[in-house]
């Protein structure tokens, strides 16, 4: 078990190194000169060169990468070109908001996805199953920002129940979270349906039924309890998608989290912030996946690591 964890962490380090190289190359492929962007279009050429030197942009790419990684292992992600703050501070200020939003999105996803999945599995191929499946499929087929805008229009603007956008307390998380949940719940409902159908056709369910267990007990006590494991572990894989989805949703709702920071950085060519947010998000995703794999083994003793 320990050796498995060590091996998985080793793999994670390699993945993270690869990600840092790819991000670095993309970030510095930017055709526009960041130094020029900082000093403004009318500043003299000498000033641009000076800023270039200050930022270390006059050095060849591999040396810049080594410098960058050297700073990185010391916990320094550089200074934002535009916001005049260390990138680590910017991430720190916003990570909480994004984490809250992601958590709300995930919970709401389960709240919508699990009942749909149970209904679909219990009424497999009945009309109710078809309706539940179709609803789930429509959810996947909707663009995130369209759902966001409609919720904003109806619940925020017309009914005036919740704030239209912005960052604040609990009320500000519901609409963005719901937006993500509507477009993602289908993944959970489908997984749950498939795994519950597997369980429902197994021998021990027949035994339970033969013993005279009530349908509710069979469905909730046995099928759901065993069938929900794959659906829950999907959450680990889903984290990458969650981050991606949150990027767009934060933009729609003007929610100031990591996603908004990243999108603004991309449009401002604020390279250190782009690098920092992407690296932070991916590192988180990779680590969560390792944790989920390990937890999976603890929860389900049938899995052996070799």
């Amino acid at each position, binding site marked *: 078990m320990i050796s498995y964890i060590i091996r998985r962490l080793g793999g994670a380090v390699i993945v993270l190194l690869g990600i840092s190289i790819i991000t670095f190359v993309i970030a510095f492929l930017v055709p526009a000169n960041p130094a020029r962007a900082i000093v403004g279009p009318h500043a003299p050429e000498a000033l641009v060169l000076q800023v270039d030197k200050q930022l270390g942009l006059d050095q060849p790419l591999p040396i810049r990468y080594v410098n960058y990684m050297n700073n990185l292992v010391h916990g320094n992600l550089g200074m934002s070109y535009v916001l005049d703050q260390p990138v680590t501070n910017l991430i720190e200020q916003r990570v909480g908001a994004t984490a809250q939003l992601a958590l709300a999105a995930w919970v709401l996803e389960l709240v919508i996805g699990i009942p749909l999945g149970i209904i679909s599995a219990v009424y497999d191929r009945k009309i109710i199953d078809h309706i539940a499946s179709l609803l789930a499929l*429509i959810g996947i087929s909707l663009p995130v920002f369209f759902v966001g805008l409609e919720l904003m*229009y109806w619940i925020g603007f017309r009914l005036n129940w919740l704030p239209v956008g912005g960052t604040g307390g609990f009320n500000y998380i519901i609409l963005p979270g719901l937006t993500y949940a509507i477009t993602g719940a289908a993944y959970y409902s489908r997984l749950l349906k498939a795994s519950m159908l597997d369980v429902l056709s197994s021998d021990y369910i027949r035994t339970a039924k033969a013993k005279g267990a009530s349908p509710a007990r069979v469905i909730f006590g046995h099928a759901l309890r065993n069938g929900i494991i794959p659906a829950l572990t999907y959450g680990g894989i889903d984290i990458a998608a969650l981050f991606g989805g949150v990027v767009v949703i934060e933009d729609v709702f003007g929610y100031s989290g990591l996603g908004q920071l990243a999108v603004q950085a991309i449009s401002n060519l604020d390279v250190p912030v782009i690098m920092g947010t992407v690296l932070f998000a991916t590192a988180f995703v990779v680590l969560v996946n390792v944790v989920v794999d390990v937890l999976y083994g603890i929860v389900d003793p049938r899995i052996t690591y070799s």
Partner: protein
Amino acid sequence: MAHMMADSSPTTGLKQRLAHPPTKVRSKFVRVLRAYPLVFVGGLMVLALIFVAVFADKLATFNPNFQFANGLAPDGAPLAPNHTFIMGTDDLGRDVYSRLLFGARVSLEVGVFASLISLFIGTTLGIISGYYGGFVDSVIMRITDIMLAFPFILFVVALVAVLSPSISNIFIAIGVLGWAVTARIVRAEVMKVKEFEYVQAARALGSRQWRILFKIILPNIMAPVIVLTTLAIGNNMLLESTLSYLGIGVQPPTASWGSMLSEGQQVFEYAPWLLYYPGLALMLAVLGFNLLGDGLRELFNPRRVR
């Protein structure tokens, strides 16, 4: 849903059968349609989308980019749907219906080309990885892990921003970054197929390697690849709309459903139709591909005999 596809009446069916004994192919076709209504419905929706995209210039009532002087109310507000502008006008006095039709082109173009690029890369890498195994396999799979760990949207947004936004750069970015899932699934399929007797037999008979790979293994893994590609087209259409919504997709004045939604967002309090039409168009288009993909998955599933 099956009853919708049933014959109009048993007698006409009988008469037809007496007049023209049905060929085997036709009866099988009808049987498949009846057993897999999803393929039928999804296929029709996809065909409708292709028709609209191909004949956009014939079906459009106006030039999609022309700003009509009579397309705005005296106070400068967009016009609600009426006799001249059947889906109303946008905030610049352009015809929403015509823009919607041309938006279908952009959407389908990006969806199809992006998916073909990632299909090509993913299938090639997956086959190599699955067939040869060993070191090559570990390298390719590590790269796949890296690609999957990225928050995909953020990655695509960054790459398109760097390459400068245009239709071709969008599908290149999506295609080049989006092959990881295909590679994984193809690899798994190849590993399964390569142990089958007919592959072993081909190897024993001394077939050349490319022949085994592309003439024997490739056709046998096509089913999941086709399903995956169908679903990917829908997903990539969503992604294109997201990029255009964020302003780094198709550039104005070219109409894209995503940019129509982002323009509509400015005035949606008093012109909600500017969101409904492109939003619903996107949903229906993506739903068509999702239904078709799900239907094909069932159709190809050998375990499900009907």
